């Protein structure tokens, strides 16, 4: 059985879809098992989907998300996609004016670093999305390199859970002195498997807010 893990958000995104495509070698219907986990890592729903070979299944996720709680102002969580086929899946997150396509999450190994280039400005906001795939609580240290400062903050993610951390609040001390180009380095402590994404929103004249999610697998 092959299992892949995907992060999704239902708000502020207007529509969230999961696209499932069996591999080119599949000659029979492929059965997918979907398991949904809330931000605290609690399993709350599952589904079984059969997809014909040479076809793509497009599932709107909202009908599967009844009871999904808010965390940091977002309804978000993880879905694991399991099948015996080496096919692929993607999450399509659509805000009112912009789409982000996410593939499966990549894990940062323990004692290794996550890394994101960030541009802090008045019209932008950043959420760090941290997803813990392991059975243990994940302890992470986030260090922001901005101008000649490098403050750090500790982060704790529950087992199999996910957290959205507003970076403007987490690093408010240094950001109160102004924004600019910076780097966020995330060091995972202890034997945990953690994945990271950035959800970046920007106010645009005449367009309202656009939201972009990036940082998933290359």
């Amino acid at each position: 059985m092959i299992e892949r893990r995907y992060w999704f958000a239902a708000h502020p995104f207007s529509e969230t879809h999961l696209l499932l495509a069996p591999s080119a070698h599949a000659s029979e219907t492929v059965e997918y098992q979907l398991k949904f986990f809330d931000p605290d890592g609690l399993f709350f729903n599952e589904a079984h989907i059969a997809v014909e070979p040479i076809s793509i299944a497009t599932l709107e996720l909202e009908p599967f998300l009844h009871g999904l709680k808010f965390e940091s102002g977002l309804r978000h969580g993880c879905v694991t996609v399991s099948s015996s086929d080496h096919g692929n899946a993607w999450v399509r997150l659509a805000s009112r004016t912009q789409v982000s396509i996410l593939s499966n999450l990549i894990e940062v190994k323990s004692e290794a670093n996550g890394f994101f280039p960030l541009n802090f400005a008045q019209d932008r906001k950043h959420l760090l999305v941290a997803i813990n795939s392991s059975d243990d609580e994940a302890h992470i240290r986030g260090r922001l390199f901005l101008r000649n400062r490098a403050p750090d903050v500790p982060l704790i993610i529950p087992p199999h859970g996910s957290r959205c951390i507003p970076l403007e609040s987490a690093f408010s001390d240094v950001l109160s002195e102004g924004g600019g180009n910076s780097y966020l380095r995330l060091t995972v402590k202890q034997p945990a498997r953690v994945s990271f994404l950035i959800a970046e929103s920007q106010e645009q004249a005449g367009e309202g807010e656009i939201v972009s999610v990036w940082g998933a697998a290359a």
Partner: protein
Amino acid sequence: MNITRRVSWVGFAVDGALTKSTIHFLGCSGGVSAPYPTQVIITKFNNEPEAVALEGARLNTPDGVRIDTAFPQEGQAQSALCGVAVEITSNQAREEIDDSQCFIELQSRNSLLKYRPIQYTQPRTPKTGILIRDHLTVSSVVLLNPTDSEQASPYLVRVGEAEVPLFPETIKPWGVVEIPASDEWFDRSSRPVSLSGGVLQSVVVSGVGETPLCGFIVYRDAAIRRAISVQSI
């Protein structure tokens, strides 16, 4: 005895009047916390490779450089789209540096796009990707040839029950091509799915065998063609 370790990535960038690109990198080794010096070489290509070595980069210290700063002598390019290869070498690390990371950022007015280039080993096994057409999005594929020899594309588009070549021609040494997704691919193969603002259609792109080429699906804003998301294939 020093052990030399090297990690490389290949991606695309845009170096034009309206869009600029920045390469961001972090060299890291799991067992080494000291900021040992590293060598960073960036190669920009679009039929011809041009390389520069950056000084001052260190392990565990994030850094970055704008393409137009690294290549200030570059004349007006035929096309703003270019390939970029990034290589980090450390002769101090006692362990692998393959935890190192790289992002490419495309900056234009009211838009910032960042994506991970492909961590490159030659040859590589291509990944499967998905082309999407909906009321917000159009798709294209960028293929890069970071080698000195012509290469055939291994990518196929699944159109109905058939698989058709994504790009039937060969790609020149150090060549870069962008292939817009054809309406015919979607019309012949894809069952439309209703969305609140229109319909969504999708087509799978996959590769056969191994290849030295690198490929990326670029999702663009349907109205103004601004790149909004990138997936490697």
